[in-house]
């Protein structure tokens, strides 16, 4: 690692003064040369831009129905026009606008699901790692039970209990991710607890809560960040899957998976209704996975193959 960084240190004016490199800068330097991760980052930036400025970027409202433009083909096909660059769907809504607003939804889904599962997972992991004994056994056994079920199936069951809808779908997906974070957090906590700085902190009188959140937790974040990036993409994918099954966001919400829900009917007559929203899912998920892989290599060189 040090040798790899040496030439960069020499050329980077910000680092030449010999000041210690901040951890974030170190990660950035390690990621900068990873072409895949950079490509992912560019796409993510684009998606975020679309999501934030959807009101200005999108040509139309995502729910407005143009009654005399049912199933207009996209602009590159015969019969298409620049008014609807990606064409319209079966009730005359602009597909491009729906995809752009869908980006906003997908990012919200990813953020909420990851935050929720991360918070719960860290909580369980810290309790397990710190208190050991009965709480540890109880929590970890429960996590095993959750893990024994295929995550999509578990999410479907939870949605069946809570009722279909985007919020319930997000809760359901978040619950299925908790065990991964809890296990990761617990493992890191156990490693950190055996180190001298924790003992030192304990000896100098730090309370359990301080030890947990101030001393130990910051040193456990690296694997959690990687997992968070990777599950951001699975969250988008799973939410789209639930939408496709009719259990996630409900029409007319412009969620990418929901847009595909009754696409089978139009496969023959209007394939663009099917191809474009799915492409949006694939590209976004791929971008997050590329960045997640890059982050993992940068944060944890041991895992690099």
């Amino acid at each position, binding site marked *: 690692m040090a040798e790899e960084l040496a030439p960069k240190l020499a050329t980077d004016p910000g680092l030449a003064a010999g000041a210690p490199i901040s951890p974030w800068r170190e990660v950035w330097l390690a990621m900068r040369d990873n072409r895949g991760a950079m490509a992912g980052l560019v796409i993510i930036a684009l998606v975020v831009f679309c999501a934030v400025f959807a009101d200005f970027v999108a040509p139309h409202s995502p729910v407005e129905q143009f009654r005399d433009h049912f199933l207009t083909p996209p602009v590159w096909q015969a019969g298409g026009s620049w008014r609807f660059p990606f064409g319209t769907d079966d009730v005359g809504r602009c597909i491009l606008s729906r995809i752009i607003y869908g980006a906003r939804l997908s990012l919200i889904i990813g953020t909420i699901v990851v935050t929720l599962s991360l918070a719960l997972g860290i909580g369980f992991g810290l309790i397990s790692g710190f208190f050991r004994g009965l709480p540890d056994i109880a929590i970890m056994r429960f996590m095993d039970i959750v893990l024994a079920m295929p995550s999509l199936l578990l999410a479907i069951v939870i*949605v069946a209990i809570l009722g279909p809808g985007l919020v319930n779908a997000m809760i359901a997906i978040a619950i299925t991710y908790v065990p991964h974070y809890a296990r990761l957090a617990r493992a890191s906590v156990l490693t950190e607890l055996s180190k001298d700085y924790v003992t030192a902190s304990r000896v100098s009188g730090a309370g359990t809560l301080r030890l947990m959140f101030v001393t130990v937790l910051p040193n456990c974040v690296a694997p959690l960040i990687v997992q968070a990036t990777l599950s951001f993409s699975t969250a988008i994918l799973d939410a789209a899957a639930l939408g496709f099954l009719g259990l996630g966001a409900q029409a007319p919400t412009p969620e990418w998976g929901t847009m595909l829900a009754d696409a089978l009917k139009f*496969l023959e007559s209007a394939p663009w209704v*099917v191809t474009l929203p799915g492409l949006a899912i694939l590209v976004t998920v791929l971008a997050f996975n590329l960045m997640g892989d890059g982050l993992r290599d940068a944060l944890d060189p041991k895992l690099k193959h």
Partner: protein
Amino acid sequence: MLRFLLTRVSLVIPTFLGIVFLAFLLIHLVPGDPVEVRMGERGVDPVRHAQLLHEMGLDRPYYEQFASYVGGVLHGNLGISLITHRPVLSEFLDLFPATLELAIFAVLLAIVVGLPAGMLAAVKRGSPFDHLVMGASLTGYSMPIFWWGLLLILTFSVNLHWTPVSGRLSLDYFVDTVTGFMTIDTLLSDQDGSFVSALSHLILPSIVLGTIPLAVIARMTRSSMLEVLSEDYIRTARAKGLSGWRIIGLHALRNALIPVVTVIGLQVGTLMGGAILTETTFSWPGVGKWLVESIGRRDYPALQGGVLLIACLVMAVNLSVDLLYGLLNPRIRHQR
């Protein structure tokens, strides 16, 4: 070995009970009054309501209900479907072969393509082929498979007319169910062309369901192969003058396969989740489609039983992989 076996099996028992408990909870958590759900009507006469509640055993204390539920599960009694009024277990068993057949073909495809691809990528590390395999597998891993299925139907069924759109067999044939595997039953039935029909129905769904396992297997094989290729004994084999392919195929592959086998075993959960989406896309009459439809029909006993069976299945496969791994690798077996 026996000690290892017993420890591993005993660890599964609490998980099993936990899953049964969750399945038991499911029926109490679903919205609506259980009697009204069962009758499919509202405002059931109070006397009749109490009587039905008693018949269903729902007026007993919860621990008693749970105990009798566990007893029922252990005897294979998973309740009665509200829609078809048939036992959930036999309903599941009727549909399961279709899912199993699809899953087997998907895994075979994933192994047949993923293993050599990952191996070659490792051997030719850094080459365009390596980049291609890694790029393709990351794309496959990121694929919304329901959309991928629609895309394949669009290309091969709608545009090229090469494959059928949905189902397991063309309506021109009628085949008696012997094994439940369409590919075997059509062969047994001796009808010309029926086997080809069954196979052509299987191709696209298998590709779709196999995509994610394929990506995972290719990635895992590559990284595990890279690790093994850097070991000393490979260098020794090279120094002995063995040919490159002999080293890779015989010496390296055997050790590189251990983590790959584990990963294949762990794909069962992914496969069952994927089957739900694949079967819905292709109208494949398996348990995945049945489960989703059960939710739509509010057939909660079917959902409860199906979820329980699938969870147990996944658990059983994971346990077998675990045991197999211990059998193959003594280091794991003697770990405390």
